[in-house]
Each structure stands twice: as structure tokens, then as C-alpha cells.
């Protein structure tokens, strides 16, 4: 388990991180979301030791991280970067050795990794001569080549086509589910995060504003929402119960209602049945995107 404890960091007058705390359990995929400039990249860089925090601690399996443990992390920075003039295989071997593998192991792992990621036939091409999609694969290979103990990926899905997204999703599931590696990645593609992640951590202005499974995030919402379809009812039938607010009116007499604390859903149902024919009555599940917008707004 990788734990980030109370991380703070300033850049001049700007407070980039202000007491960031969360953890990434073994074998789980954690989505790290937040608006641009919220502090995601800074957090990841600190977790990797690329940046030092002003205060706070990063722990791996309960112990402070030393350089040796850090070398076993895998990292894909948001700003993609490889030596443009180095050949794919050569470059991956070099990076694997920097991560601590011996030369024969590094060669073997580099070959395996590009095989799995489908760029094996480009092993002896210079990176600058590859298509962007293949460069992205090599970049991912660079993060995986040493079979990392922890995977930290900054916007790994940006710039991928749907096939690439599926491939990367498969790799991340394999790393977390198969090898039991803690995986954290940042993304603005919230549907993807919702689909892929065991947990989500939401950051804004350098502070963690929500963290947990999607269900936990939903449950923590102060308001509940209902989707109700009533035919033949007056437009403002729900006004009779205090604490019910209209969020959205859809076609076919559909309404999305927000219920204040203490408002009983069954009372709303009774009222709806009294007003007309109820053709649909359900709890509205908030999408991660909605949770995100709400959380960031407050």
C-alpha cells in the first residue's frame, strides 16, 4: 500500500498542495481527478520523489520510502518523454537498468513488454520515427518494463484512440488484478475513471475534497435525487412537500427532483400517485461527472 500523508508544497506564493492525504491499496486502481491546476501532477511527482514536499510523508508498506524502493515505481509523466534518437529496445533496456534491473533481465523484460504492447516489430526503430500511437505505447512500456511495485500514471489516457484506451484499460487491470500492484492515474475522462477505478480521489486547490469508492461518494451526497414520470399531473405537483426542488424537467413529463435531508421518498411517491399516473419512479444515480462538478463547485 502506498500512503500519501499530509503532503504540502508551495511554489513561491502559490500553494500547490495543502495537506494532501490518501492511500492506494495493493491491487486497487485509484482514479485521481480534479480540475486543471488542482495539484494532481505535483502530488504524483512528490510520490515519485521527483519533487520534495515542504511537509508530509510518503510511505510504502508502512515505511518511509528510500531511493531503492522508489526505483521500483513505474511512472508515466503527463509530459511524455523519451530519448527521440534512441532505439526502442535500447531505450527500454536503459530505463529498466536505471530502475535497477540487471542487463540480462532488462533485455528480457524490455522484449516482453513491447511484445505485449504490440510494438515488438519496432524494437530497432528510433522513437522519433514511430507514429504518435506507437510512441505512446513505448511510453507505457517505459513505465512497465521493470515490472514496477507501484504504478503512477499522469493522464495516461489522453491522446489515445478507443482501441488504445481498451488496451491500456486491459494493462491496468492486469497490473492491479493480476500482479496486485497499487495503481493510481489521473484523468479528465470521468466515465473511464468510473468504469475502471476501485476508488476515486478528488482534489481541488491542493486539497482532497472527496475520496472513496464511487458508491461511497454517492452516499456522501447531502441531497438525494429522484427521477419521476407522472402523466396528467399539474406542473408543480411536487411543491406540496417542503424540501423538494426541481433540478431538471425532461420530456415525457419526466422530472428530476432533489430531496432535502429528512424528506421521505415514499411521501413523494404518494404525492405523485395522487397527482396523476406514475409511469416511472427511481433513484437518480449521480454520475462521477456530476459528483465532480458538485464537489468542485462547493
Amino acid at each position: 500500500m502506498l500512503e500519501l500523508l499530509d503532503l504540502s508544497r508551495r511554489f513561491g506564493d502559490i500553494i500547490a498542495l495543502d495537506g494532501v492525504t490518501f492511500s492506494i491499496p495493493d491491487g486497487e486502481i485509484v482514479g485521481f481527478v480534479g480540475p486543471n491546476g488542482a495539484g494532481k501532477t505535483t502530488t504524483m511527482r512528490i510520490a515519485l520523489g521527483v519533487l520534495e514536499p515542504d511537509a508530509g510523508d510518503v510511505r510504502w508498506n508502512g515505511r518511509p520510502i528510500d531511493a531503492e524502493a522508489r526505483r521500483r515505481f513505474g511512472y508515466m509523466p503527463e509530459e511524455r518523454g523519451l530519448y527521440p534518437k534512441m532505439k526502442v529496445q535500447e531505450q527500454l533496456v536503459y530505463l529498466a537498468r536505471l530502475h535497477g534491473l540487471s542487463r540480462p533481465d532488462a533485455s528480457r523484460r524490455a522484449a516482453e513488454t513491447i511484445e505485449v504492447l504490440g510494438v515488438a516489430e519496432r524494437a530497432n526503430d528510433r522513437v522519433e520515427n514511430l507514429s504518435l500511437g506507437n510512441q505512446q505505447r513505448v511510453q507505457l512500456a517505459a513505465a512497465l518494463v521493470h515490472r514496477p511495485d507501484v504504478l503512477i500514471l499522469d493522464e495516461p489516457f489522453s491522446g489515445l484512440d478507443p482501441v488504445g484506451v481498451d488496451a491500456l484499460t486491459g494493462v491496468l487491470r492486469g497490473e492491479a488484478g493480476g500482479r496486485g500492484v497499487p495503481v493510481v492515474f489521473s484523468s479528465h475522462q470521468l466515465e473511464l475513471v468510473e468504469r475502471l477505478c476501485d476508488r476515486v480521489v478528488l482534489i481541488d486547490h491542493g486539497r482532497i475534497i472527496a475520496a472513496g469508492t464511487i458508491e461511497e461518494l454517492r452516499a456522501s451526497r447531502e441531497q438525494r435525487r429522484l427521477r419521476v414520470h407522472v402523466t396528467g399531473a399539474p406542473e408543480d405537483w411536487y411543491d406540496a412537500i417542503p424540501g423538494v426542488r426541481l433540478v431538471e424537467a425532461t420530456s415525457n413529463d419526466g422530472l428530476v427532483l432533489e430531496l432535502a435531508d429528512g424528506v421521505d421518498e415514499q411521501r413523494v411517491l404518494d404525492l405523485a400517485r395522487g397527482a396523476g399516473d406514475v409511469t416511472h419512479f427511481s433513484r437518480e444515480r449521480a454520475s462521477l461527472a456530476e459528483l465532480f462538478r458538485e464537489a468542485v463547485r462547493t
Partner: protein
Amino acid sequence: MSLSGDGVGSDARETDRGTWWLVAQRDFWYRLRDKGFVISSGITLAVLTGLILLRAYGGSGTPTFDLGLLGTGSTRLGPLVVQAGNGQGTDVRTRPVADRDAAEAALADGSVDAVLVDGKSLLAEREVPNELETAVQTAVVADGIRTTLEANDVPPDEISQILTPTPVPVETLEPQDPNRETNSTVAFIAVVILYGQLFGYGVWVATGVIEEKASRVVEILLATIRARQLLAGKILGIGTLGMLQLIVIAAYSIVLASLTGALDFPAHALGTAALAIGWFMLGFAFYASLFAVAGSLVSRMEELQNVIVPLNLVILVSFFLAIGATSDPNSTLSVIVSIVPFSSALAMPVRISLGAATSFEIVAALVVSIGSTALLIPLAGRIYSGAVLRTGARVKLRDAWRSASN
């Protein structure tokens, strides 16, 4: 889709100490295979080959002239001209010419440089070479003296004694090394090459830093290795390549110069080369740290020229000061520039090689050089680590210093 290997400890691991060594190896081999390196090495060796061959076979030996002899008066003077030529360090070869037409033909085809007519006048195509004219002049005077002495019944062996020049003994107040001129030439060439290596390889360090920054690969590297290890590895790798190239250049030049006879005294050149190599290491450690800092401040290769201008100037000024020291190694200026850190790597080997440096000055220069580099490296490392992750606009030194975390 999944990868094999359980990751945690399944592969053999290298120790942390080895990481800067890996960086050094990569930088070394990567550049050794670089086309630019191969081409520039080839050009350097070709230029040196040209210089050495020119010195060995081009004109610097004993001047030799061919003199045609026309008429009996000339035939009698011939041996005297040869003797006079020998006395002044000129080889004169004589051969008889049948008549005026043959003389003109020989002059036209260049087989003689001048023709002595009847022992009285010189005929040439355009002008008579000075040395040849002097030799003929001397021979005519000697012939006149001999004729007069013979007419006064001076015994022949006395005459030849009078006419055989004996060198006047020379005594100097400050004895000069007979190889002084050669030694200064060797020192001059050593300074030029040393300057080229310091500057060229320094720029390579800067471009290496910018390359990693511009391609952003540095962020991946810094996730595995500390900025200072990366810097140390890079300087070591590139510096080793520079040193090996210097050794190859020196060995090649000295062997070629000895084989062709361009150098009379290769042992001294060997000593100068060893000095140059030693001071290259000291000077490179110093300058490479500065070049690395310069490179870390910018994010694009196009900005390289702007940041290295000040360094470029400092090295160039040091270079000219060191050139000055090759001709005047004992001046106060030469002593100073051979001790201050920026120029000592260029000027001190010159002064040692020319026998001008005292042991005190050598020790002082070593202490200053090693001490200033030892102070500079941590400063450079800090600025480098503070600047190397900041892409975009040029980083100010002060900001880099502040944002470095340790």
C-alpha cells in the same frame, strides 16, 4: 492483456550506487556512435596530419639551390660557392652549362636557380634567391683574397686555414633551451586542442542536458535517479569520451611526428600531452558543471546559443591568455592566468611544459582548480536540479536556486 513477472524482487537488481555509472555509460556510448563525433574526430586528425607532414617535408629543412656554371671562370669558382654555401647553412649543387642558350633553357625549365657567367655575373630568370647570391658573393670575395695571398707567396695550407671559417664560440647570459622553438610550437598546438576539447565537450554537456529537458525524458529519469547523480553521470561519461579522444589525438600526432621526423624530441611532446590530458580533466570538471547549469535553464535547443555566450567568452579569453603564455610564459600576466580557475587549465600546462612554472605555482593552481570545482559542483547541482523540471520560458538562476529542494 497482462505482463509476466511478479515484479517484487523477481528480477536481479543492481545497487543504487550504479545508477550514475549507467548514465555515464549511456552518454559515453551514445556520443561515441554519433555521426558528429566521428566526423569531427576525423577532421581533427586530418588537420593534425596536414600540419605534421607540412613541418616534416615542407621547406623547413636546409635550403637547396642549383647553380649552373658557364665559362672557365665559373668552373674554378664552383667549389668555393659550395663551400661558402655550407658555411651559411645552404646546400648549393653546381653543374656546368655549355653555352648561353643552354643556360637560358636550364633557367626556363627550372633545373637551375641561377647561372654564374664567367665567374663574374649571375643570370636568373627573374631574381636570384638571397642565400644563393650571398654564397656566390662570398665565394668571389674568397677567390679574390686567395689570388692576392698567392701572389704574395703565402703558403697554400695557411691560405686554406684563413679561408676556412671556424664558428665563433657563443656564450649566453641566460642559456636557451635549444628545443625552445619546437617546444613552444608543441605547447601552442596543445592549447588549441585543449581549448577545442574543453569548449566542444562543454557544449556537448549543455546539449545533452537540453536534449533531456526538451524531450521531457528527464522526468522519467528523475523518478529513478537524483538530479545530482544524473548530472555527475553525464559529466563523467562525456568527459571520459573527451579525454579518450584527447589521448588518441596526442598519441597519433606524436607517433606520426616522430616517424616523419617533424619532431626532434618526442619525449618532451609526450610530457606536454600528458599535462594537457591531466589539466583537461580538471578544467572539464569545472567548465562542464557551468555548461550543465546553462543548459538546464532553457527548454529548447534553439536557446542554447543564448545561454552559453558568457561561458563561450570566458573560455575564449582564457584561450588567448594561454596563447600569450606560449610565447611569454614568465610574464606576471601568464603567472596569474595559470593560477585563476577559469584559465588555469589552459595556461598552466603551457607554462609547465615550457619549464616556466615553479612548484609553488603548480601546487597553487592545483589547489585553486580542485577547490573551486569542489565548491562549484554542489552549487551547479542545486541549480540544475531546481531548473531541469521547469520547462517553458528560460529559468532565472535565482528561481532555480530557490526551487531546488535541497
